[in-house]
């Protein structure tokens, strides 16, 4: 068997069935080979649907399957670890004609990706209350420390009501979802903080300056640097509140050793 020829036929239904195959008399080789073509596509689109359930609901299942097949052909997985398959889907959705009709679709996809990455991110030990209290009493140390945020932390800043859209789809039943969707004000943007709490992934609405501030910390800025950046864009960053929230969530952690990250 030629693996390259088999692979090419598998990925492209326009190609003929690979040479050298046989089936029992009376069976159709085309039909039998189609089982493999179908398996590959269906299972990878299923994997995508597991990561992007709200996108799937927003565009409808049949359209999502078509979109998924197109994506799988353009971006087949390189790794057998499919828990993190579909990282490029957000960009794909944004560039797709479907996004023209639903301008918020790309941002919803990005939020769902952040949730998936958050779920499987490395573990880290939150800094103890004592450590944080000691730092808080030492202005010099507080100003210069580059804090480590939990590897599960993700930030999304959107021109669309992305948190409300996502949250609406967490209701049980189509009627409740429609009701929640109708209440959404599409003229305002929203930002989200994503973080793991025990075994759950939290999607928390935050203000734009708060999102900017946390994004700064994730990028390695100190608290004063990140706060200054956020305040340059918006006046209303309530620093004590956002710091208290991050501490409560256990977002400040001890440094994660590289060996633990290397999964």
């Amino acid at each position, binding site marked *: 068997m030629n693996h390259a020829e088999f692979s090419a036929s598998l990925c492209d239904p326009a190609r003929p069935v690979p040479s050298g195959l*046989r089936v029992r008399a009376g069976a159709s*080789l085309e039909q039998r080979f189609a089982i493999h073509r179908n398996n590959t596509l269906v299972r990878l689109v299923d994997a995508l649907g597991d990561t992007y359930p709200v996108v799937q609901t927003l565009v409808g299942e049949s359209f999502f399957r078509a979109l998924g097949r197109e994506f799988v052909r353009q971006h087949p997985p390189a790794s*057998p*670890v*499919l828990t993190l398959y579909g990282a490029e889907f957000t960009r794909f959705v944004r560039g797709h004609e479907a996004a023209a009709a639903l301008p918020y679709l790309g941002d919803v996809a990005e939020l769902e990706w952040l949730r998936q990455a958050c779920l499987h991110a490395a*573990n880290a030990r939150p800094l103890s209350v004592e450590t944080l209290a000691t730092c808080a009493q030492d202005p010099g140390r507080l100003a210069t420390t580059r804090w480590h945020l939990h590897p599960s932390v993700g930030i999304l800043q959107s021109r669309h009501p992305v948190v409300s859209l996502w949250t609406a789809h967490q209701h049980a039943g189509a009627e409740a979802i429609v009701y929640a969707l109708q209440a959404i004000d599409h003229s305002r943007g929203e930002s989200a903080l994503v973080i793991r709490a025990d075994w759950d992934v939290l999607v928390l609405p935050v203000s734009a300056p708060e999102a900017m501030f946390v994004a700064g910390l994730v990028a390695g800025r100190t608290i004063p640097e990140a706060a200054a950046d956020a305040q340059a864009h918006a006046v209303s960053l309530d620093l004590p509140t956002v710091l208290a929230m991050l501490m409560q969530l256990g977002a400040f952690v001890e440094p994660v050793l590289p060996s633990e990250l290397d*999964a």
Partner: protein
Amino acid sequence: MRLDSRDPRSLAGIGFKPGYFEALMQEPVRPGFLEVHAENFMVAGGPALEMLDALAARWPLSIHGVGLSIGGVQRPDKTHLKRLRRLLERYHPALFSEHLAWSGHDGIFFNDLLPITYDMLSLLRVCAHVDEIQAFLGRRLLLENPSSYVEFSHSTWSEADFLREITRRTGCGLLLDINNLYVSGTNHGRDPQGMLREMPLDTVGQIHLAGFAVERDADGGRLLIDTHGAAVADDVWALYRLAINMIGAKPTLIERDENLPTLPVLVAESGLAAGVMQAAAETRLGREPARREALQT
């Protein structure tokens, strides 16, 4: 945790799904062991691994890989082998298995178990890959016979002979998937009982049972699709009884990936396998009065 080979109930397991976790931790009905797909737990952290930690404290585990692509042209991927080794070191599973198939080529993973030619070139390649995997992981692999829909004109070996030669050359064991055997036999017009008898049964380390879907071939004949989406078929149970009567009790797993039933239903189905092993053991003891006496004293 190890399997207790004397107790048929402990040898009958089920495939784990996250949806079963809560019920498993509370349920009075308990499967003998749990099997997981290795790739689902190759993550940096989070609940998946913690869930498996909790399960591993209570059950013997079987770790079943679907991504090594042993039948592929390329050597097993080192990065993937390292991920697998980390998992095996963390859980020390009672059973570890992979497939006689390929699932990727030239940097693309197809997420399907694809068939290989049964000829000398392919045999040498598979054996080299199995040798490398076993050496790298430092443990014996159980290799699963595939379900298949197409065959290769250039195959010069039967599947059973091909598998026997691999086990002989590499020392790996056989994960005998009786549903796959039945599916392949039916699809290729062969007698599944005859195929079973030809398998290297002395190397069986584990058995898989599952359900299939029935479609129609161009001529109206039965075309079986290995979906893991239904209860184990009667014909497959019959083959299983035959196998157990020949080789004795072996760790047996009910695989279910679609149309998941409730946990008690799935555990009850695994109980049927325990019943078959129990009955076979009693028949054996009945045939060997001296051994029965020895056991009673």
